[in-house]
């Protein structure tokens, strides 16, 4: 079946545009039409940018007609998680406290997308301040999974995964602090990558946990993800944590094969109470890679059982500090008629933050408070060193690690909402990657008996996104899972 315009890969859309068979305007209109058809039910989009996008697409078509080369993403409709600042376009981070915040500048990743010719079409729903695993914590309502609308899309970049899976955009950006790109990619049957810490600038990205946050692509193929990452990656002097390391040609990296590559299977990642279909699909994908020439070794990440507590102590401690800026003074909501400054802070924050954000600010403040710092925060930072050491040791024996993204497929809305510990455990297989600062890729690898997508997670050495993409591409060559789209 010939894909509709809204479902084209970036490569195919770009090729058709260069041949003059399709215009940027037509691609945009297809994405906007799809948004109109699907989003009332799915709740992926928070703010549409129709007018600015139409102007940009028309301008781009004129440049293309004049023989200009506007860049590798010329005319491609891209959407952004709503914690990424966009000039003159509302950016809420899924929070009531930023309900009417309109940034005065673009994040560096947005600048780079625009410079490459991309058209920004919409801002996408997410858990408030990216705190969540289900996109149920948004102040603007939940996003639903297009494969089964009674289920969550995963979080926190749920809107990004849903918009990409359903053709509301060609690709999107998300952020990943503990699995927030990989989990929704896995639950929605699309490709998602968390780059190495430092690979992508976070200037203009609303901070949750600064030693863990990273921006990355969500796309319908590894090829598209590589293209998008190539555009946004690289040093930015406005983000002192962005790495000066050169960015290799990521798309060329896809061309290699996996002969002789050593794939490590962390035994702890297969020991959790796992849904049988998930384990079966992941092991089948690994067997495909073996047939393609890779070898498989068993490895151990012995500190995995401490990862959840380590992450939630460090991330919430950083969040409690990062979110101190929402004080009702400079931007965001202010509680009406405060009598004094202290009342203004407390009332504005009390009314502006949702339940999960309050829970995390409280946990982080507690972990940093006098008398508890050594027992919680310092201990977690030491544990983090051990967790990162596990990966270093594993990578002496293999080139990439392969595992599921999550122990189960998408769960039902509301199912874990009242049980924070169960919700936090959703991230058990993704969270250590953020603690170690290394890159990881989620690619579709099958479906469970209920027809819900399953994701294969590939984890790489620091700054070795190339190998991950190469293995992801080899997996795509051996299967067709990534071509499946959710029912209309």
């Amino acid at each position, binding site marked *: 079946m010939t894909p509709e315009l809204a479902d084209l890969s970036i490569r195919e859309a770009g090729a058709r545009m260069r041949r003059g068979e399709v215009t940027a305007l037509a691609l945009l209109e297809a994405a906007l039409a799809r948004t109109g058809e699907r989003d009332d039910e799915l709740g992926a989009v928070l703010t549409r940018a129709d007018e600015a996008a139409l102007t940009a697409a028309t301008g781009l078509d004129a440049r293309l007609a004049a023989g200009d080369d506007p860049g590798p993403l010329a005319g491609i409709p891209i959407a952004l998680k709503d914690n990424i600042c966009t000039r003159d376009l509302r950016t809420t981070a899924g929070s009531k406290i930023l309900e009417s915040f309109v940034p005065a500048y673009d994040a560096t990743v947005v600048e780079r997308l625009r410079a490459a010719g991309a058209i920004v079409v919409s801002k996408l729903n997410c858990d408030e301040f990216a705190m969540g695993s289900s996109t149920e914590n948004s102040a603007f309502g939940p996003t639903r999974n297009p494969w089964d609308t009674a289920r969550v899309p995963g979080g926190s970049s749920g809107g990004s995964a849903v918009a990409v899976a359903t053709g509301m955009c060609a690709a999107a950006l998300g952020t990943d602090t503990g699995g927030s790109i990989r989990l929704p990619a896995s639950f929605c049957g699309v490709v998602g990558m968390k780059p190495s*810490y430092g690979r992508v600038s976070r200037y203009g990205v609303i901070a949750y946990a600064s*030693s863990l946050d990273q921006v990355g692509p969500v796309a319908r193929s590894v090829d598209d993800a590589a293209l998008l990452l190539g555009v946004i990656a690289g040093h930015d002097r406005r983000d002192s944590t962005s790495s000066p390391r050169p960015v290799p040609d990521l798309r060329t990296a896809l061309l290699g094969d996996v002969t002789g590559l050593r794939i490590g299977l962390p035994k702890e990642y297969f020991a959790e109470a796992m849904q049988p279909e998930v384990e079966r699909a992941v092991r089948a994908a690994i067997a495909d890679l073996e047939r393609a020439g890779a070898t498989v070794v068993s490895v151990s990440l012995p500190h995995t059982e401490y990862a959840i507590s380590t992450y939630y102590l460090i991330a919430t401690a950083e969040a409690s500090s990062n979110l101190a800026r929402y004080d009702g003074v400079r931007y965001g909501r202010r509680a009406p008629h405060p009598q004094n400054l202290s009342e203004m802070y407390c009332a504005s924050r009390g009314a502006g933050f949702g339940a999960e954000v309050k829970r995390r600010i409280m946990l982080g*403040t507690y972990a940093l408070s006098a008398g508890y710092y050594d027992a919680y925060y310092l201990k977690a930072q030491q544990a983090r060193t051990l967790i990162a050491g596990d990966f270093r040791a594993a990578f002496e024996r293999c080139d990439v690690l392969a595992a599921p993204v999550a122990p189960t497929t998408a769960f039902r809305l509301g199912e874990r909402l009242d049980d924070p510990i169960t919700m936090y455990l959703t991230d058990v297989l993704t969270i250590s990657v953020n603690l170690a600062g290394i890159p990881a890729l989620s690619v579709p690898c099958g479906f469970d008996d209920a027809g819900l997508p399953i994701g294969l997670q590939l984890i790489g050495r620091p700054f070795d996104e190339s190998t991950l993409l190469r293995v992801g591409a080899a997996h795509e060559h051996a299967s067709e899972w990534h071509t499946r789209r959710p029912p209309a």
Partner: protein
Amino acid sequence: MGITRDEVRTVAALARLELTSDQEESLTGDLDQILDAFRKLQTLDTGTAEPMRPFDLDAAPLREDRVENLPADDAHLEQAPDRHGRLFHVPKIIE
């Protein structure tokens, strides 16, 4: 040792969060449950492990100390919940 409601009030004051009575109660239960689940971390022998440091120290080279971002312009002032001319307006600070 469980976390008490008084401790929750103290932490909320430190975090500048106004909580309703219901929120205090549910957060007391939540934090108690979460910290209890995290207790296992206390049993981990971290030995001489140093706390994790930033990943790539080379990523933060020194640069010339020069102002590059402009002072707040109208676009920033427009985000003020309350303003007074070209100033952000806040309640009285000194009693």
